[in-house]
């Protein structure tokens, strides 16, 4: 099955980004039109691919029509399709929100955003370990630009940290890829899944070193303890639109963990089966706890958004770390809703809080008139983030707790999630009181008469509506996600779909 639709989520943003660089000379309007149009197209493509993947049959796209273990493949299974759809929804929201003011602060915002989307979509689709590295680099390079967009002293300093940690991460990624290639002689994920169980006894140690190095890289990407410290300065100082789109980057790390450690080093990997299982759960619990402490200690809405993102990553990784069908489905559901919640929180914080360099807040002045509106939005997002009913965060946490119920980790998981839930609530309540109920200081900047930025506010509201829809449709969605988790835990279909192409490609060549 060789459908050309699979290349669209990579091709559309790549072409658009190049066009946008050229369109720079012709003003912002044409760039915005192009960017919004392309993002809408990507969303449409993602919806189409989600429907396509719905029948449970992984689709394979051979780049250059080279047969599978030799050429690079793109693979669309349910997990990839779900993540693509999430990216599409998030992207259209961020693009629309940036139209107000944020894309004006520097040049090439939309081009960088499209390159970023290309990298993210590619990372979700690729079926090759080295190609995953390349798409990681694409999304990182774009994110360096986006992170520094608009510039400013604190942003530059945080940017140096961010780029350094990611360069080190890329180096470790290459070491891991090299080690794995040296032992197995392949980098195609499906082929690796076949070769890893057959590894010679003398090479086991080398291969497990490679697998754990790879895990380190993904842990850096997903902000897992002890590699979480780069996130708050980076996301906290960058522009709100960039931070909102970065909310999905941590999920790229989580996605890679799920992909590699179910497919390649999963239950069927012989001596290396479940190699990360002893590491991931404790690290995830500590991540959740440290994120929560960060929320309690944060001094503003931006810090709050950053640390609550770390806490939510901890929750997602706890669910992933259990590696059962129920827990993976719950992790997916929670990851989807927490991405949107985090992104909305970053956008809202951007509307309310001073820029990192003390520039004029967009809506702080408008807050006096529209305080109720913003406070209401914050209230709903806080409900979603700490996991109270009726929004999707509650259902996500409930599913994770339920997934941990039969297992041996029930005490650790339940106490971690429930206690941090309470502490998160306290943190969010306190931040809300500080922001919305305390009287403004007399030396606060006098209210300028700028209107409430309509588009970003509407986007935040729309994301909350999506969260509500996620919780209303939780039943049918969970059926899909359970099917996704089942597909992940039976890698045979994936392997057959990829390696079976050897023959079909030969046919097409005739």
């Amino acid at each position, binding site marked *: 099955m060789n459908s050309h639709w699979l290349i669209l989520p990579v091709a559309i943003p790549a072409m658009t980004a190049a066009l946008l660089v050229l369109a720079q000379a012709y003003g912002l309007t044409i760039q915005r039109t192009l960017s919004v149009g392309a993002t809408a197209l990507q969303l449409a493509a993602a919806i189409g691919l989600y429907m396509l993947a719905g029948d449970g049959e992984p689709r394979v796209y051979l780049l250059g029509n080279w047969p599978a273990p030799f050429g690079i493949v793109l693979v669309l299974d349910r997990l990839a399709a779900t993540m693509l759809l999430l990216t599409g929804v998030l992207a259209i929201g961020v693009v629309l929100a940036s139209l107000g003011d944020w894309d004006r602060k520097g040049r090439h915002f939309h081009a960088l955003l499209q390159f970023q989307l290309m990298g993210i979509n590619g990372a979700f689709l690729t079926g090759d370990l080295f190609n995953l590295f390349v798409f990681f680099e694409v999304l990182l390079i774009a994110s360096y630009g986006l992170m520094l967009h608009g510039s400013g002293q604190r942003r530059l300093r945080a940017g*140096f940290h961010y780029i350094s940690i990611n360069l080190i991460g890329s180096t470790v990624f290459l070491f891991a890829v090299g080690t794995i290639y040296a032992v197995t002689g392949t980098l195609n994920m499906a082929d690796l899944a076949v070769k890893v169980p057959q590894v010679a006894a003398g090479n086991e140690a080398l291969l497990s070193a490679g697998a754990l190095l790879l895990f380190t890289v993904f842990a850096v990407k997903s902000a897992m303890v002890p590699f979480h410290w780069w996130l708050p300065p980076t996301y906290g100082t960058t522009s709100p639109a960039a931070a909102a789109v970065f909310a999905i980057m941590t999920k790229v790390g989580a996605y890679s963990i799920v992909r590699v450690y179910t497919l390649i080093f999963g239950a069927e990997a012989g001596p290396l089966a479940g190699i990360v299982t002893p590491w991931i759960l404790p690290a995830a619990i500590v991540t959740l706890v440290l994120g929560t402490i960060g929320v309690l200690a944060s001094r503003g809405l931006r810090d709050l958004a950053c640390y609550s993102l770390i806490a939510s990553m901890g929750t997602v990784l706890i669910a992933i770390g259990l590696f059962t069908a129920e827990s993976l489905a719950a992790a997916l559901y929670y990851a989807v809703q927490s991405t949107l919640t985090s992104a909305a929180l970053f956008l809202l914080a951007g509307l309310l809080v001073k820029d990192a360099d003390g520039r004029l807040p967009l809506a702080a002045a408008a807050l006096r008139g529209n305080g109720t509106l913003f406070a209401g939005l914050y209230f709903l997002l806080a409900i979603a983030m700490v996991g109270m009913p009726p929004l999707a965060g509650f259902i996500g946490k409930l599913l994770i707790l339920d997934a941990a119920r039969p297992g041996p980790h029930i005490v650790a998981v339940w106490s971690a999630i429930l206690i941090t839930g309470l502490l998160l609530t306290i943190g969010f309540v306190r931040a809300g009181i500080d922001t919305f109920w305390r009287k403004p200081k007399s030396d606060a900047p006098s209210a300028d008469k700028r209107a409430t930025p309509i588009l970003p506010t509407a986007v935040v509201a729309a994301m909350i509506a999506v969260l509500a829809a996620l919780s209303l449709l939780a039943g049918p969605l969970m059926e899909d996600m359970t099917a996704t988790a089942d597909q992940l835990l039976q890698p045979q279909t994936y392997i057959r779909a990829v390696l079976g192409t050897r023959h079909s490609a030969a046919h097409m060549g005739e």
Partner: protein
Amino acid sequence: MNMTMSMEMLLATGIGAMTAVGVYLILHRRTFPVIMGLTFLSYAVNVFLFAMGRLAIDLPPIVSKTAAGYTDPLPQALVLTAIVITFGMTALIVVLSLRAYLETGSDDVGLGVPPDSADPDGRRDGAAP
């Protein structure tokens, strides 16, 4: 000790030395040594990747009728990609740290703007904070 053995020894110690130098330099608190450290790490990983196809002497990486055997071409392609990416990244981080130095007047990698360079324009001629 034959030729491959001594080459393996040389490569392995070379990679180890470059990694050690890279890690040592990255732990500094000035941007310049950190960038040098990153560069050393990327050199080390490039050589490492190159050696992952196993070391072979006098063998071509492309198909040839007269060849007695082949050396694995894939790691060479990987190294090429890695070199291009790290080159671009190094250029970016050099520009970034220069810009940060010019704007904040310090090349310290600490996150807060150092108190003695926090004048509003952020320009300061002296280097050492």
